[in-house]
């Protein structure tokens, strides 16, 4: 059709006037768009699946979604800058207790979590600890990564070693492993894995850093001393000094390259070995994280999804949450793509089909497990998070294993923790 200038001006002018008069934008402008910032998952296939689900979400709901990924290490800075500038993404994926840090900036999503819990059962303990802030859900539990023991089953069989059940059981096993040239690999350095394992050991020896009230430092106890003494003998007889220099990849690599005989880690170490067809892959298996005289508490890495308060698309963002997590078939599909690295965060989904995709996942079922996040049993207030982030726990252990008397190392940690809580 030939459009004359007059006709063009008349039609566009009328349209514009109509928009101004009614305040309703035309249909094209009405398409809602949300943006979602998440980490680059260590199981990359699940990021691909997320993109695929995002496209289907747009087709089904008409809401466009932009999904951005950043490295885990950059998340803290990115979250901080988005909050400071009050601009950025609508939705953010958060690790562990981050929702506590940004509580005043996050939308109440209790309605979404309520719907999910009705469908899938209660959120697991660690997810609850991380995202349920002072009576309000500030983020929706998405999935979690467990810390299990990854060990060389082939070496265990060869040497007739028994799979340990407690941290104390690990000592004689570790001694044998070291003699075989395959030491235990528990990092004692300024990295996250060091903190994770240190909490698990501490709790299961019955020790705690800060009490339930979040204010009383209780690190200086006989139980902590027992845990530190355990670390000392493990370091001396079952490990090598290299663990003092490790970063988060090191224990994975040591197991994959055939050196370490036992590590405490999310199952990514095995998945990478299997996917890269490393010779060690067949020999690796998993068993549950260890217990002790203080019970069986496991460190866990729950991840959740929150909506910034500055977002102008809160409802559309909640629709995405309901689509990804609330539709059972979509949630299953998403979890299945993550190779059991990402496990569902709700109690009725413990026995998930993803655990049947590989015989090495059989021991990862989490029924009845008491999962916790950093700092437990203290609520993860910003001061308690600073205690964790300051690496006081691994540094206390590092001091002790390198010659500082146990009492002195614990007293140092106690003083540092008290200083932070008093600040």
């Amino acid at each position, binding site marked *: 059709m030939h459009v004359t200038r007059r006709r063009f001006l008349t039609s566009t002018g009328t349209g514009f006037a109509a928009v101004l008069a009614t305040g309703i934008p035309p249909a094209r402008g009405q398409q809602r768009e949300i943006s979602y910032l998440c980490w680059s998952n260590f199981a990359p296939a699940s990021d691909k699946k997320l993109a695929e689900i995002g496209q289907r979400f747009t087709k089904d709901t008409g809401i466009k979604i932009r999904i951005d990924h950043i490295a885990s290490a950059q998340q*803290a*800075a990115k*979250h*901080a800058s988005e*909050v*400071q500038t009050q601009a950025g993404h609508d939705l953010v994926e958060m690790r562990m207790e981050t929702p506590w*840090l*940004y509580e*005043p*900036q996050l939308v109440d999503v209790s309605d979404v979590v309520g719907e999910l819990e009705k469908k899938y059962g209660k959120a697991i303990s660690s997810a609850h600890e991380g995202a349920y802030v002072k009576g309000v859900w500030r983020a929706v539990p998405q999935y979690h990564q467990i810390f299990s023991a990854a060990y060389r089953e082939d070496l265990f069989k060869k040497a007739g070693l028994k799979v340990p059940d407690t941290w104390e059981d690990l000592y004689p096993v570790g001694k044998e492993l070291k003699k075989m040239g395959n030491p235990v690999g528990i990092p004692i*350095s*300024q*990295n996250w894995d060091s903190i994770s394992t240190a909490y698990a050991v501490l709790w299961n020896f019955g020790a705690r850093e800060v009490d339930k009230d979040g204010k009383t430092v209780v690190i200086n106890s006989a139980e902590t001393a027992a845990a530190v003494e355990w670390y000392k003998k493990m370091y001396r007889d079952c490990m*090598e*000094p*290299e*663990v*003092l*220099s*490790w*970063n988060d990849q*090191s224990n994975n*690599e*040591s197991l994959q*390259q055939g*050196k370490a005989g036992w590590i405490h880690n999310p199952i990514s170490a095995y998945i990478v070995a299997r996917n890269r067809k490393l010779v060690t892959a067949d020999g690796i298996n998993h068993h549950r994280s260890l217990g002790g005289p203080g019970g069986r508490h496991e460190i866990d890495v729950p991840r959740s999804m929150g909506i910034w308060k500055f977002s102008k698309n809160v409802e559309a963002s909640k629709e995405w949450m309901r689509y990804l997590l609330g539709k059972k078939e979509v949630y299953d599909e998403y979890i299945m793509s993550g190779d059991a690295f990402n496990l569902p965060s709700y109690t009725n989904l413990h026995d998930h089909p993803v655990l049947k995709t590989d015989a090495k996942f059989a021991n990862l079922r989490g029924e009845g497990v008491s999962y916790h996040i950093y700092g437990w049993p203290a609520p993860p207030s*910003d001061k308690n*998070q*600073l205690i964790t*982030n*300051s*690496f006081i726990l691994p*540094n206390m252990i*590092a*001091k002790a294993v390198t010659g500082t008397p146990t009492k002195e190392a614990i007293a*140092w940690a106690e*003083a*540092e923790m008290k*200083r932070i809580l008093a*600040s």
Partner: protein
Amino acid sequence: MGRGRDEAHPGELTSVAVGSVGIAVAARQPLRVRVRELLDREWFLGPLFITPALILLVLLVAYPFGMALYFSVSNAFIGRPSHLVGFRNFINLWQSDAFRQTFQNAFVFTGTAVAFKLVLGISLALLLNQQLWFKRLIRGAVLLPWVIPTALSTLGWWWMFNSLYSVVNWTGIALGIMDPPGPNWLGQKYYAMTAVVAVNVWRGLPFFAITILAGLVSIPRELYEAAETDGAGPWSRFWWVTLPMLRPVLTIVVLFSTIFTFSDFNIVYVLTHGGPINSTHLFATLSRQIGLESGRIGEGAAISLYLFPVLAFVVYAQLRFVRKQNY
């Protein structure tokens, strides 16, 4: 303008068009002249040239710096309202063991690294100033460590110091100068500091060498000839001619390097994350740990600004010294 006239006098299109051209030309001429005159005036041209840079400086340097100053004297926490607390952050920090350790590390790290870079930089510059084969190629290659993004090259160093794959230890053991398994580079206090200093020296050396080389090239040959005539040997020529002539360049290089080294982040963050037991933490890495990972930007800003008064004085003193040199 043309269209408006069209609508007013639709029948007089041609004559108006001619008229409008005439008017336009007449009006444009004085404007161009006026602009040219304006550009000839220093009071206008100077600020005009400076404005873009000034805007950038204000937006990207002054504003963030002002914010950092404010944060450092407030109890700012990411995403929460804050209020001023005076110098409390600076005072409280001193009670932290990690901070006191960081303070000490910063001086050890900077002092050692800058000293090594200075000595090695002068040596390398003297070497590059000789008539060498493939001189240009070598001069270009020397710059490489400075050109590669630090995070990337440091990752390479991380592999070299890695406990499982350390090529440094492998070579040392193969040559028989190290006992297996070799030093635990990133796991022991002094080794870790040695490692981060070594990487900083490796990275910063080209900046020293090339800048000093530029200084060396500009020293007049006659001075050396005169010295030789007076019977000065190579050492005397270096001590009495080269070094004094290089002093302004050295001052500037050391000044810049001191500031950059004090504020180094990547090397420590990638290699040791501040460990073992905080023994390699620098102000920037500790500031990130407290300010960004734990949300306490007030305290984080105070850490990174702790040395600001000292550094500001050093800069002032050195620049004053350079100005006195009249070079």
